[in-house]
């Protein structure tokens, strides 16, 4: 089998200690929680850390508190299994339970954490390969190489943002709580991402995600997550649609958020699609128009499973379906 390279495992006693270790050890250090993304990538030579700072046992990263003062608190160290099986999450934010429950397989969800999924490395068919393969292909921009093998003229890495839970959190307006050497800061989760396959995270290297808060305002919002992939388990999304909508008693749409995943290098908030439906009684025509707007924002390239032409086409289909579900036009 592929061998795991040697590394030093650093177990910090507290979140503060972990942050300190990260800044002391410098760029040779990475954090590890569940390790489901990290270890295979180390075996393939995509990540080459000398030190791994463990977040696994930190109590600060634990806990799901559904009805906190500000909203729902979810510790970054909670497993995906804990999320998708949580009674209150299933009741209030079914989209989040769906997204977390759709990540990989039950075994990996038992290990993988929500923090790990929010910051899961971007993926690409030219990058998620062994060292042997990447050497044979000629290395790429994202690791060890100079050019993007998907689009050689692209100056930017086009690796695909592949988190299932990030678009859902973004659709619900979640805040991220980060702890760094300078202390704690909170930021709108979607602001942590940018459309660059390599630098897809705006957070500092030494900052650790403590948890996320879904604001009270999102409670009562209808929400759904739809995922396109080849199989019912195992696969990363090749398209994900997270949608959240609220309605008045007269069934007028008061707010709407549509966030796509796996169509670029970050979660894509499609404001235009939301604008089409807000303030209206949502019918098929409005949904069709919103879906079309969303599809225009979707730019898959030939670096993931399934034909990119097909994936773009499916953006419309999946957004249409998601909005129709929320508007009660489909079940």
């Amino acid at each position, binding site marked *: 089998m592929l061998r795991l390279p040697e590394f030093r495992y650093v177990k910090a006693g507290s979140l503060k200690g972990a942050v300190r270790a990260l800044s002391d050890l410098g760029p040779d250090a990475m954090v590890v929680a569940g390790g489901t993304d990290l270890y295979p990538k180390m075996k393939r030579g995509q990540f080459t850390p000398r030190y791994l700072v463990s977040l696994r046992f930190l109590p600060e990263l634990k806990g799901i508190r559904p009805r906190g003062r500000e909203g729902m608190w979810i510790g970054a160290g909670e497993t995906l299994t804990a999320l998708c099986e949580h009674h209150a999450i299933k009741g209030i934010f079914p989209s989040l339970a769906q997204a977390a429950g759709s990540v990989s397989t039950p075994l990996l969800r038992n290990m993988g954490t929500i923090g790990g999924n929010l910051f899961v490395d971007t993926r690409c068919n030219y990058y998620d390969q062994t060292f042997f393969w990447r050497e044979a292909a000629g290395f790429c921009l994202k690791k060890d190489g100079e050019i993007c093998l998907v689009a050689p003229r692209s100056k930017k890495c086009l690796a695909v943002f592949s988190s299932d839970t990030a678009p859902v959190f973004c659709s619900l307006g979640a805040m991220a709580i980060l702890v760094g050497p300078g202390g704690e800061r909170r930021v709108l989760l979607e602001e942590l991402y940018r459309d660059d396959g390599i630098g897809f995270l705006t957070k500092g290297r030494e900052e650790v995600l403590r948890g996320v808060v879904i604001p009270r305002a999102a409670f009562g919002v209808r929400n759904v997550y739809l995922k396109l992939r080849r*199989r019912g388990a195992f696969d990363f999304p090749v398209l994900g649609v997270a949608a959240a909508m609220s309605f008045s008693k007269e069934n007028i749409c008061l707010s709407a958020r549509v966030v796509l995943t796996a169509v670029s290098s970050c979660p894509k908030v499609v404001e235009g699609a939301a604008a089409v439906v807000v303030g209206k009684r949502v019918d098929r025509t409005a949904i069709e128009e919103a879906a079309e707007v969303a599809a225009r924002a979707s730019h898959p390239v030939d670096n993931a499973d399934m034909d990119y032409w097909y994936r773009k086409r499916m953006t419309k289909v999946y957004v249409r379906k998601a909005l129709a579900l929320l508007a009660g036009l489909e079940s």
Partner: protein
Amino acid sequence: MSRQGFSIIGKALPKIDAMAKCTGETRYADDLHFSRMVYAKLLRSPHPHALIRAIRTERALSLEGVYAVITGRDLPVRYGISPATEDEEALASEKVRFVGDPVAGVAAASETVAEKALGLIDVDYEPLRPVLSVEEALVAEGELRIHSWNRRANIQKAVSFEFGDVEQGFEQADHIFDETFFYEGNTHLPMEQYCAVAFYGPDGKLTLWSSTQTPHYLHRALSKVLGLPMSRIRVIATPVGGGFGGKSEPFSHEICVAKLSMITGRPVKITLTREECFYVHRGRHPVKMRIKTGVKSDGTLQAMHFQSFLDGGGYSSYGLATVYYTGALQTVVYKLPGYKFEGVRVFTNKPPCGPKRGHGTPQPRFAVEVHLDAIAEKLGMDPIELRLKQLVEPNTVTVNGLRITTTGLRECIERLAAKAEWKKKFRQLPYGQGIGFASSAYISGAGLPIYWNDMPHSGVQIKLDRGGGITAFCGSIDIGQGSDSILAYVVAEEFGVDPADVRVVTADTDLTPVDLGSYSSRVTVMTGNAAIQACRKLKDTLLRAAADALEIPADDLEFAEGKVRCRSFRDRAISFVECVQKAEAKFGTLGAMGSYRPPKHPANYRGSGVGPTPAYSYSASIVELRCDADSAEVKVDKVWIAHDCGRAFNPLLVEGQVEGSVYMALGEALMEEQVFRKSGLHKLPSMLDYKSPTALEMPEVETILVETNDPEGPFGAKEAGQGPLLPVIPAVTNALYDAIGVRIHEIPITPDKVLRALEGRLKPVSVPSFEFPPPIRWQPGEGVEVQQKS
């Protein structure tokens, strides 16, 4: 299930190794550990096509913990599964022919050190332009020639046959249908990766443990390449964690660990990574096909012209047989008075293709069954009716000289159609839902061995212990299909004892008589017959002892319930143990041998060796599915499958084989593809990215077993391991047409193809233009005489 007169046969028993597998007791090759053992890794080519100018190994050799480094120079003798096409080297010496072609091997104290050492081997390559398509391969010249031994271009083998009167058949036809198809390549994906351990002892003898389906052929290849007599080599096939055809020939890694052990004097182990398994491959050939059929207005087939173009990859492997198999079995299902077949296999700079479950027949079966579905529709006939009116009859010889013994296909189809409520559903389901049908046939063991010889294909030795224990020795290897269990059942049935009283010792060339291996669905029929012969010889001896002891004539005695007893007065009996002891006292140590060779086949033309078998199994399948009109995603709701297995020794095992075939077929039909980048690099060599169905994709399967009691099979049995895969793939395609009205002529049927087809944008499959050699002509009746039971 009929159980006439049997005590074990027909019973749903657990496999004899079931508990060991469930509890983790089974020791696979990678579970073997020896003291002083070292670990091997192979350096593989990053180029699809290149000359090797030089290899320097000094730096690797000087690394601490490295015991030996070998290159092609250490193993210069070529080998290959087929004696006519021995074009492989354990390590490429002058040229590499695909990305992943091994060029050097290292033995080191650990896998980590071995891997590090690979990075210190310097190979100077001169890259050549790779040849990646059949079209390019057919015309390749100069440096684009991948091998130099073949006559022209990159053509490994081109064949052409004409059986019956093809011209007249087309003339008499009222309609002629002409279509093209493409079946993408895919790989076996067994759970267990390739693994082998070698130890060359101080006694000058080599032992190789390997996860192999063909220990005997491996034994021969090792001897040839290593220059050791076969008598000094022992091959032990370890329990195979899934083979599906991918472990049925000698491999580089097996030869390399043997050589490395000879150099180091230590046990050497190699376990390939999953990625390497994709490069070793030997899986399903990508095949382009053209099929032209002449039919009467009532649907009767008059003549068929079938062309196949096989993309073989870098080496021959089993390709010689594969190209014939893409043409041989078209005639075995429906009566065909005239048949023309032309096939060609080419070399390309991709991992070599070989045999995978159904070996060369799923591709043409897909084409033929989808083609017939279209013909039925054009003629306004029910596709099942069209087939039922021209099924091949039992005890006949086909137009290409294949001898049919029994066929239960009619019963299969009728029971299947009733179960699935075909008449109620076909063309009656709402848009987006559909039902489709197809049928097929497969061989129960190849009629000829891989290398020409007159010896038996399978041998069984039985030894009786004074305590009543029975040991059966046989070279067959259990690859999960249950061949060890089958051997125990046959022996237990014959001696009237519990299968638990039978021990089987298999797949060890030092201990067991030769069996050619677990390929071509041959084991139940061939080892079963050999075992029965051995048992009956021993029973004669035992009966003589029992007849004396009981004072009853031997022909009034039977073996049952752990006794030898009088048929008419069952109380008059002696226990089996007592009988054994009396016989041993009388005749000395007890043992017997049995062996089996398939019957001679009727045809005698050049190329007639591929296709014959002792008996053909038959299968039919109905698939019901739904296709989302917006996303074109296909979900299979249910598969009904009927299989004529001759006799189900153990219905549980047969159903397991049938369900496994359905699973594999659905993967091939809907998602699996071994595909390459323009650079010749495998696109997705990993379990995550090579899409194979999970348990969630598996629909409900309803299996119907049909028994025809074939005179050639042991207790009437035929095969069950491969045939049931064949009808499922075209049935999926036909069901999709019923659901949404488009026929996809390409496997796998992915959502993007369906969407393109719905929009009329899916291009038809193009086949290369190629001039095949003049045909070998043969008329039925020209062959040799054959008797029935061999």
